């Protein structure tokens, strides 16, 4: 039996990132801020808090996410803003994450 569940890319990202055992996870679709068709799923922002990031430099933290989302990034996802914190860092920031920049390019950029 072949059962296909149509999952949005956003839901799939949320699902896969559970592998990092997040204390807090927020996936935001920011595609509407870019020059792509309405209801696109191309530009995302992820805020993820996990004790797995303890002692890891920023590049290593990002690479962990890229490994988990390799499929999405090699296909439909064009931009992925990542804000990755340990529980302590998140607490000291008061739960704030930075804003993403606005688009500067055309649909091919």
């Amino acid at each position: 039996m072949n059962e296909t569940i149509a999952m949005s890319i956003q839901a799939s990202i949320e699902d896969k990132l559970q592998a990092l055992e997040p204390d807090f996870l927020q996936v935001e679709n920011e595609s509407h801020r870019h020059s792509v068709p309405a209801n696109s799923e191309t530009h995302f922002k992820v805020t993820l808090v996990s004790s797995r990031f303890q002692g890891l430099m920023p590049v290593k933290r990002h690479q962990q996410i890229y490994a988990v989302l390799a499929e999405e990034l090699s296909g439909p996802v064009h931009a992925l803003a990542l804000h990755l914190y340990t529980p302590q860092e998140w607490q000291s920031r008061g739960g704030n994450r930075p804003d993403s920049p606005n688009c500067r390019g055309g649909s091919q950029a």
Partner: protein
Amino acid sequence: MSDTIENIKKQINDNPILIYMKGTPQLPQCGFSAQTVQALMACGERFAFVNVLDNPDIRAELPKVGNWPTFPQLWVEGELVGGCDIIVEMYQNGELEPLVKEAAARANDGNEQPSA
């Protein structure tokens, strides 16, 4: 190994401060590249850049070199420092400027003739 990857490795080795971006520092073609290059320019050192929109082969191959799928990418002394989120955060908390200035200083030392 493809020529493109050899070319990328040479760029990374030859340029102590190197940004791969969409567009140019004067005319970035992407908000993420714009923010990153602005932070880098604010550090006040010379740097090299590659516009990946003009170099589709580099755009395709670079993600494999650094295990990093998106642009921009800032490389300092042969190491990937990060993309937009990391660089902007490092700039804001004061870590980017010393990193860039020290790399520039070491590069300048290396180019000078040793004094007797």
